[in-house]
């Protein structure tokens, strides 16, 4: 927040001694350096990637399948694989997140033991490194009790578990933001608790929930570490047609191309990065539009 000055700092500052002033200047330079570090890094990353990969951004690349010969390499199976994995995981996590948020906000008292307990679990999950989710998936989903193997379903489940904490937090904040007058009015008109929640609270919270879940999905789209553990096959030359199919996703395709020795593959990696960033950017833009459009006045 900007502090609104009661008195203009410059008038008092003019009485500041030279030594103090030079330290002020040095400090400010330090801050600018930090700022420029962020901006410059981002710009370099985007420009470098774009320049490297631009030539490969053709329809052939988007519609072709991976190939050991770089000229023919494409990412269609990765794009569709990503969609097959991310959309179900997002929907699944969304459902659980909304239910959990409703339960926590409407059915438990604040600071009750159960709320604290669930909160602790959510915070723990949020702090778990992504690769550990890969271990969880390896032990219980790909092998172990579920034994779904290294398939689309496994990936969707593991990513869903990973983005769940983020989704829960977003859903809770959205529900919390709904003013209590809405609830009270509804109850006063004779609605039951669940009717109130279902017909008043949740619909009012939809924009916030939508924004949060889009951001969660965007995150799932870019994940690589857990899926590395879940043996996303190296070259999958077909699009998935079911949850039991083998798959690959765009981040893993990037990973694969990035480790290739020949520079032609670096170009493919950069092109795939551009595709991924465009997809994520579009999602985030959608989230911002929803958020801005639905700033209702209560």
């Amino acid at each position: 927040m900007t502090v609104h000055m009661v008195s203009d700092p410059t008038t008092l500052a003019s009485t500041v001694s030279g030594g103090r002033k030079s330290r002020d200047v040095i400090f400010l330079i330090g801050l600018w350096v930090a700022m420029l570090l962020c901006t410059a890094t981002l710009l370099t990353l985007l420009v470098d990637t774009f320049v490297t990969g631009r030539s490969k951004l053709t329809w052939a690349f988007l519609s072709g399948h991976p190939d050991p010969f770089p000229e023919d390499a494409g990412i269609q199976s990765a794009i569709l694989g990503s969609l097959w994995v991310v959309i179900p995981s997002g929907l699944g996590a969304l459902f659980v997140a909304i239910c959990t948020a409703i339960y926590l906000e409407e059915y438990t008292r604040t600071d009750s033991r159960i709320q604290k307990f669930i909160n602790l679990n959510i915070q723990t999950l949020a702090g778990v490194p992504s690769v550990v989710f890969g271990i969880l998936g390896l032990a219980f989903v790909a092998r172990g009790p579920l034994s779904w193997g290294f398939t689309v379903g496994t990936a969707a489940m593991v990513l869903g578990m990973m983005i769940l904490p983020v989704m829960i937090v977003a859903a809770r904040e959205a529900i919390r933001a709904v003013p209590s007058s809405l609830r009270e009015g509804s109850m006063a008109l004779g609605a039951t608790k669940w009717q109130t929640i279902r017909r008043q609270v949740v619909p009012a919270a939809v924009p916030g929930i939508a924004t949060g879940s889009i951001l969660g999905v965007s995150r799932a789209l870019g994940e690589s570490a857990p899926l590395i553990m879940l043996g996303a096959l190296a070259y999958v030359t077909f699009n998935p047609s079911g949850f039991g199919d083998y798959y690959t996703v765009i981040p893993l395709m990037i990973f694969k191309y990035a480790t290739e020795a020949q520079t032609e593959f670096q170009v493919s990696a950069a092109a795939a990065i551009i595709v991924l960033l465009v997809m994520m950017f579009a999602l985030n833009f959608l989230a911002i539009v929803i958020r801005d459009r639905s700033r209702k006045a209560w």
Partner: protein
Amino acid sequence: MAEDQQEAVRLRQEQDVFRHSHGWLEHGATTSGKATVSIGISGTGGGFEKFCKNETDISNASRAINATEAVNCAKAGVTYTEIIVANDGLAVVVNPKNSLTCIKMTELKAMWAPGTGTSGPGKATQWSDAIPGNTTGALKLYGAGSDSGTFDSFNTFVHGRSTTSRTDYQATENDNVTVKGVAAELGAIGYYGLSYAEENAKLNKALQIDNGKGCVAPKISTVQDGTYAMARPLYIYVKKAAVAKSPVIREFVKFYLDNADIIAADALFVPLTKVQVNTARGAVNAI
């Protein structure tokens, strides 16, 4: 599983050999139009494990199946046929700016030997530790991971035993890591399959190997006649049950053998000799 899933030919093989089966796939696309092929990459050991667990139908390998793995397959009721599909060798590569052109097997052994026992950090840290008088400086080693058939092959050639190796080097299942590392660092030396050497000739320089009888360069002729010290065959293991269930697989293998020369050339492998082709055909027909 859906109809066309049953036709799925699931391959599992090592990075080195990957190029090979993919070339096979490309050319075979027309005949096996109905099959969906998915290829996984892992070390040879991991590949055999999946093979014996019935997770794959064909396993490509850069070494023969070993006794333990054969026992595991037998226990799981998996019967298979072993077919040699190409010849390959191991290339030892250095940075193009390195003036060395020929290396002795004894020198390789000194470079890659563990300090004590059969595994552990090695002793040599400078090029001069292995090659007296060499001025390249610090030794940077790149090689295959311990699950890889290339690892087994290399160690068998150099140390006489497949699992003897020093452990403090850049180990990877992905030979590209080695290619890049060797291309970037002057003091680097690494090893991988010959096909990779041909493909990356501009980035890495393959050394001639001297096994006591003079320096031999890795070439098609020297690999086929065995004068190159580190020549090895490439195998596929085909599950008999899978062939019985789906004729597509037999067609697949047959197609390969009929076009062995083209495919091997494309994938930069050393093609089979006529004798080898006949043996393989016999094996396939017998399935």
